[in-house]
């Protein structure tokens, strides 16, 4: 199922738009209420385009444009349903994007390798409960991921 958000506001490319940096002029669904950390996260994702090869000192691949775009779209789909704290965002070593949230004892992270391949891991640092799964970002966040994400809700 494609989880494109029909009720959300779509925006054209803009300097602070959600798809700035994707470079294809496409539209991205934006939730009506944006978290305060979103502009900074989008800046970071845009800046990923300038991250060079060997950015980690261990020959890590530069982030791929398609991964950055998939991560941006995924971020919007997640925050449209769940209010989350500011994420930590980083390139991965194989040209993908990592998005990680932490709230109290809950840690939830997603590695987006490509528009079709991603995985998530949840860890409760107090109880050692763990959960993980793989999914296709173009299909949107899977239900188990969203269920876990509610544990980190900020409101």
């Amino acid at each position, binding site marked *: 199922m494609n989880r494109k958000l029909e009720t959300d506001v779509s925006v054209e490319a803009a300097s602070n738009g959600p798809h700035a940096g994707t470079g294809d002029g496409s539209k991205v669904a934006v939730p009506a209420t944006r978290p305060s950390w979103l502009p900074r996260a989008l*800046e*970071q994702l845009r*800046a*990923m385009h*300038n*991250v060079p090869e*060997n*950015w*980690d*000192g*261990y*020959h*890590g*691949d530069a982030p791929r444009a398609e991964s950055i775009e998939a991560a941006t779209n995924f971020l919007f789909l997640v925050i449209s349903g769940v209010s989350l704290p500011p994420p*930590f*965002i*980083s*390139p*991965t*070593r*194989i040209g993908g994007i*990592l998005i*990680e949230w932490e709230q109290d004892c809950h*840690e939830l*992270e997603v*590695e987006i390798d490509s528009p079709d391949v991603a*995985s*998530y*891991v949840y*860890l409760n*640092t107090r109880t050692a409960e*763990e959960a*993980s799964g793989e999914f296709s970002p173009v299909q949107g966040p899977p239900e188990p991921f969203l269920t876990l994400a509610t544990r980190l809700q900020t409101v």
Partner: protein
Amino acid sequence: MAQTPAIEDDEFVLRHIPGGSEWQAPGPRITSYNFRLRREQGETGVSVTRLRITAPEKLLTLVKATPESRVAAAQVANVRALGLRVVPKPVDEDPGHAEIQSDIADLDNHSVRKRLAKIFRFVAVTLSS
């Protein structure tokens, strides 16, 4: 050439944790992405450096660190307890170079990398100019 000594359980291994003010702040952070293998490029393990042989300051020069760079350390026994192997892989520029490799546990598994990240801790080190 002298034989490389085996890696003892009580040793510590170091890993550079990169940071970038524009694309990663607030950071850097020790998380699973630091331990992802580039399989298509033939990587067999996660590169680390043995503290007993190579100082953190030296590691920072080897990886061409930036001002945002940090160094993290983990005790070898804790890495092995996860089901991973730690083996020496000395190279010319770093005789303390070693690799964390899959064994009982698989580094291609996201959960394994997450658990590995949790046992590393930042160490105090300054990038010398």
